[in-house]
């Protein structure tokens, strides 16, 4: 029953009397509308007479609107979108209903695309700097130049550098590189030009920790895909499932489904504050920052001591009785391992004392809650334990991540129904030329230089990339100084930890930025070669790990570019052509980025997508190519491969090792061979015994700085890839709980604030050893008393008319550049700070 009609009698009478009075008025209203109907030629005003009960009042023609297929660009999710274009103008974006990620939906950021396209602050053509002085308050005095001048200048500079034998002094740093036509072209360019610094990716400032935790334990250096549809329990360690997890749109869709099914799937959120995810979850465990690993270890301890592990995947004691008893070491011979290697050693070295009570003191949650969550997780499956930055942006990040990921092994959800998978790649066709045939002698003679960020050297042996180290290393001249730097979709001068170092570093580097917007990097630009925005270009985007089966999208231009801009892929190809020699020959053979895409699409001929896409034309029309199913499945400890009809082919251990669990042992390693190979380095950096480095273990987080408050800098749902700061509709609703409608506030627990005599709306100074920034305070009881939260988004000193100078300052100015020694991920959330009223 509607609550309204089940109300007490009195109210009903009252509302009835209202309704009589209303009746008269409504008749009046209709009469008025009727009059209008006579006047108007079309539209709703042509109301039918009151006697005619049925609609339709109107049948307006749907205006002639073209719907172009494209791909959203505001997180790495790669949602397919439908872009509505009428009279050459984009006025509406919805999710592509056929697209397997977007399913006709989008997260809030998706709708901002139109504002991003029509941003009034966009660069309108290539430009060069005329003011040689660089600094925050220096106007670059850009003057427009032609594309030829811009590309010639860059090519000449790069050629001279290479002729001097200094190709390594050119670095190209990128953020959101997605496909063969942008980052693929850049990588080839780096190979042919001969610089180890082309490209340097941004993963070490993004989410490298979970990738390395997975590589260490099961050999896949990748983010995971999750079978949410069949999951029954989700244990999220600090993952912003409803704010920043990828693909946000897809995760929210699945969240809705998990809530709709009966019985409802349960979701437990571990977090350091009451995020919207923590509020919407069934249970939230609010822990001390950086202690996720301790919690995960205790959950593992409970699972083992209570005998709740998945025996078919993990293995069992020879006599089938559970011998895991708190504090007691075991003999490895008593246990038959199946797919988890080193369990008893892990137990003896680490887990045996890691009780719920032990963790409750470290994490500040009750031992009972830990035990209950462990039981739910192990018995209420299929269960998934997941994490990203929340648990790994601390110096102990990889160990936290390994402990969390090991829970997946204990419940046997690796490659299982309702569990974890990895993303398959699309069958792309070969490019018109093979880059390896075009490497010239100059490149070979200059090989062997370390990267400027020292990733992969003895400094950071396990890190894939260390973007945050570039400024520091350049300033110190160690390993060498850069001469020229190019940026694509990354703005470390704002977003790197200790970002002010970049302001010094970029002063004596020739800076080329491809951003279409006047960001902070651009203020240091010597040449601007603005990119198209995403609605103006062709680009391929193979998807981010989502559901396993291969999918790749094609972005097609919804409209002709608004200004004299050029797609980054073509900018690189054009520079390559101008370098001459073999490099020039290669890029002449490649021709342009659309040609690249047409060659990629040839791979679909022998593998048509489920939506019938078998060539470039179909790809353009549908916007994506996808082919189900995911090829592997683990059922009750046996692995099966898809044979074209079903999962019939049972896999041998060698095949599992080659394709799925890619560790030296071919199993899920809770004693990581990868880390043992680097035992000396890890032992030195973390101060743990060399014979223990392989185990997922508790390493207390070394917080940076000094102070009594943890500074947490999460991304919120409106963080539209750095452009949110200049989008009026994003600014307006950015920080939901404390209601920052004009910028961001520092979220602070009222008790903490009152103890410092800080009122709401007061300006405060947040101090770390790197300096101070100012912010405005609002009380939020969802913060722990020793945690303050400043969302990462505002504090720009460039970036457009709405972004500049808005909101609280940029937290990255006071976050120390300290990284997890294993993954190299910057420890964004490990700062301690002081907060004082100004």
């Amino acid at each position: 029953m509607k609550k309204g009609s089940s109300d007490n009698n009195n109210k009903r009478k009252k509302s009835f009397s209202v309704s009589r009075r209303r009746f008269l008025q409504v008749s009046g209203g209709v009469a008025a509308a009727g009059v209008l109907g006579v006047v108007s030629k079309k539209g709703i005003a042509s109301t039918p007479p009151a006697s005619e009960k049925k609609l339709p009042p109107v049948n307006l023609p749907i205006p002639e609107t073209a719907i172009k297929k494209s791909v959203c660009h505001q997180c790495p999710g790669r949602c397919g979108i439908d872009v509505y274009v009428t009279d050459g103008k984009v006025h509406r974006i919805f999710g592509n209903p056929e697209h397997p990620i977007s399913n006709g939906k989008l997260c809030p950021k998706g709708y901002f695309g139109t504002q991003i396209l029509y941003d009034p602050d966009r660069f309108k053509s290539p430009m060069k700097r005329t003011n040689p002085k660089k600094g925050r308050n220096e106007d670059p005095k850009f003057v427009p130049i032609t594309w030829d001048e811009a590309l010639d200048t860059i090519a000449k500079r790069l050629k001279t550098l290479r002729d001097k034998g200094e190709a390594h002094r050119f670095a190209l740093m990128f953020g959101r590189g997605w496909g063969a036509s942008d980052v693929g072209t850049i990588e080839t360019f780096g190979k042919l030009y001969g610089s180890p610094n082309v490209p340097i990716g941004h993963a070490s400032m993004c989410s490298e920790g979970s990738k390395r935790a997975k590589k260490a334990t099961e050999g896949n250096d990748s983010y995971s895909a999750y079978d949410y549809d069949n999951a029954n329990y989700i244990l999220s360690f600090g993952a912003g499932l409803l704010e920043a997890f990828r693909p946000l749109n897809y995760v929210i869709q699945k969240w809705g489904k998990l809530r709709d099914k009966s019985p409802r799937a349960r979701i437990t959120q571990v977090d350091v504050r009451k995020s919207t995810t923590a509020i919407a979850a069934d249970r939230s465990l609010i822990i001390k920052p950086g202690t996720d690993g301790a919690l995960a270890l205790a959950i593992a301890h409970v699972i083992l001591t209570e005998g709740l592990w998945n025996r078919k995947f993990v293995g069992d004691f020879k006599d089938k009785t559970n011998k895991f008893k708190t504090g007691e070491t075991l003999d490895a011979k008593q246990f038959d391992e199946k797919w988890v290697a080193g369990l008893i050693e892990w137990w003896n070295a680490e887990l045996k004392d890691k009780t719920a009570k032990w963790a409750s003191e470290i994490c500040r949650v009750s031992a009972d809650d830990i035990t209950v969550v462990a039981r739910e997780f192990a018995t209420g499956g299929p269960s998934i334990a997941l994490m990203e930055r929340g648990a790994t942006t601390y110096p102990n990040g990889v160990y936290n991540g390994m402990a969390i990921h090991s829970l997946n092994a204990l419940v046997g959800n690796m490659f299982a129904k309702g569990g974890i998978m990895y993303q398959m790649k699309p069958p792309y066709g070969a490019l018109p030329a093979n880059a390896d045939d075009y490497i010239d002698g100059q490149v070979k003679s200059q090989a062997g230089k370390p990267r400027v960020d020292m990733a992969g050297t003895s400094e950071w042996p396990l890190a894939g990339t260390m973007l945050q180290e570039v400024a520091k290393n350049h300033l110190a001249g160690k390993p060498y100084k850069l001469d020229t730097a190019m940026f694509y979709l990354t703005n470390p001068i704002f977003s790197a930890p200790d970002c002010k170092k970049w302001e010094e570093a970029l002063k004596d580097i020739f800076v080329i930025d491809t951003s279409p917007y006047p960001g902070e990097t651009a203020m240091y630009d010597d040449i601007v070669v603005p990119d198209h925005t995403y609605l103006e270009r062709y680009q391929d985007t193979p998807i981010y790990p989502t559901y396993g089966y291969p999918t790749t999208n094609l972005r097609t231009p919804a409209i002709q570019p608004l200004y004299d801009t050029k797609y980054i892929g073509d900018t690189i190809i054009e520079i390559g052509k101008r370098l001459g020699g073999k490099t020039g020959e290669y890029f002449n053979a490649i021709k342009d980025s659309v040609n690249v895409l047409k060659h990629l699409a040839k791979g679909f001929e022998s593998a048509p997508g489920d939506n019938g896409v078998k060539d470039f034309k179909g790809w353009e029309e549908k916007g994506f190519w996808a082919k189900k199913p995911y090829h592997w499945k683990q059922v009750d400890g046996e692995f099966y491969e898809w044979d074209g009809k079903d999962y019939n082919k049972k896999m041998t251990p060698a095949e599992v090792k080659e394709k799925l669990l890619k560790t030296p042992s071919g199993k899920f390693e809770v004693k990581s061979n990868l880390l043992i190979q680097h035992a000396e380095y890890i032992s030195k950096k973390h101060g743990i015994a060399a014979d223990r480095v392989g185990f997922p273990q508790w390493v207390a987080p070394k917080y940076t700085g000094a102070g009594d408050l943890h500074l947490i800098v999460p991304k919120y749902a409106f963080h539209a890839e750095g452009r949110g700061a200049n989008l009026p509709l994003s600014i307006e609703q950015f920080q939901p709980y404390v209601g920052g409608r004009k910028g961001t506030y520092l979220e602070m627990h009222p008790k903490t604030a009152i103890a410092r005599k800080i009122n709401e709306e007061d300006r405060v100074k947040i101090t770390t050893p790197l300096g101070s920034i100012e912010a405005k305070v609002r009380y939020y009881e969802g913060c722990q008393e020793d945690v303050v939260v400043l969302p990462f988004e505002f504090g720009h000193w460039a970036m457009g008319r709405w972004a500049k100078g808005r909101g609280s300052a940029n937290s990255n100015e006071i976050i120390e550049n300290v990284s997890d020694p294993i993954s190299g991920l910057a420890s964004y959330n490990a700062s301690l700070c002081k907060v004082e009223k100004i």
Partner: protein
Amino acid sequence: MSRWGMAIDLAKCVGCQACSVACSMENTRVPGENWHKVIFMNEGETGTKKFTWYPRPCQHCTEAPCTKVCPVRATWKRKEDGVVLINWYKCLGCRYCVMACPYGVRCYPEVKPLLEPDIKEVYHGRRAKLWDPPYQLSREEQDGKRGTGIPPKGVVTKCTFCAHRTDRKEMTPDRDPVKDRDFTPACVIACPASARYFGDIDNPESEVSKRVERKGAYRLREELGTKPQVFYVK
């Protein structure tokens, strides 16, 4: 009778605000002109506060107080489908209706801008047009008589249940956000959690009616007797 109604499943709503943004972009609203808003609340005593939220479109009340106070009957409840609309050709901008609405859903975009610089100045509107951004509904979809699209200066604006979309097709029991995309309100299409249901609440066969009939369904400020056509379910 047939009346458009909406059911919002609060158990599924995740507070992502996709509805608000989709609404603002579809209907070209200026910052602060929130036809749709997700209201975030702290409830309870200090120390044990509970955090909740609910999405708030126009409630399209059956007994709409806003329509009663309009001196020129510029705002009225459309009899055919129960949607409350404003005719911008008639509206005087007196804002009585803004005061009368118990849900705070009516906007007067001519006030001091929420954000500087004022987006209305950045995309300056010619003649009577309030502003003129490059992205806006097609000319056919903009209709001052129903209050869709960019308003003239000096009028009150409000949620129309996306009348420019729903009016394109005759009344049906349900509007499926995927199949009937061009005929469904933007907030319903947008909701990634599929927490919103839109259809004919007078048709017992419609999905929205079935949701409303479930236990625990309620309307906002029921005590006022406004009888909203928007229901909250769990």
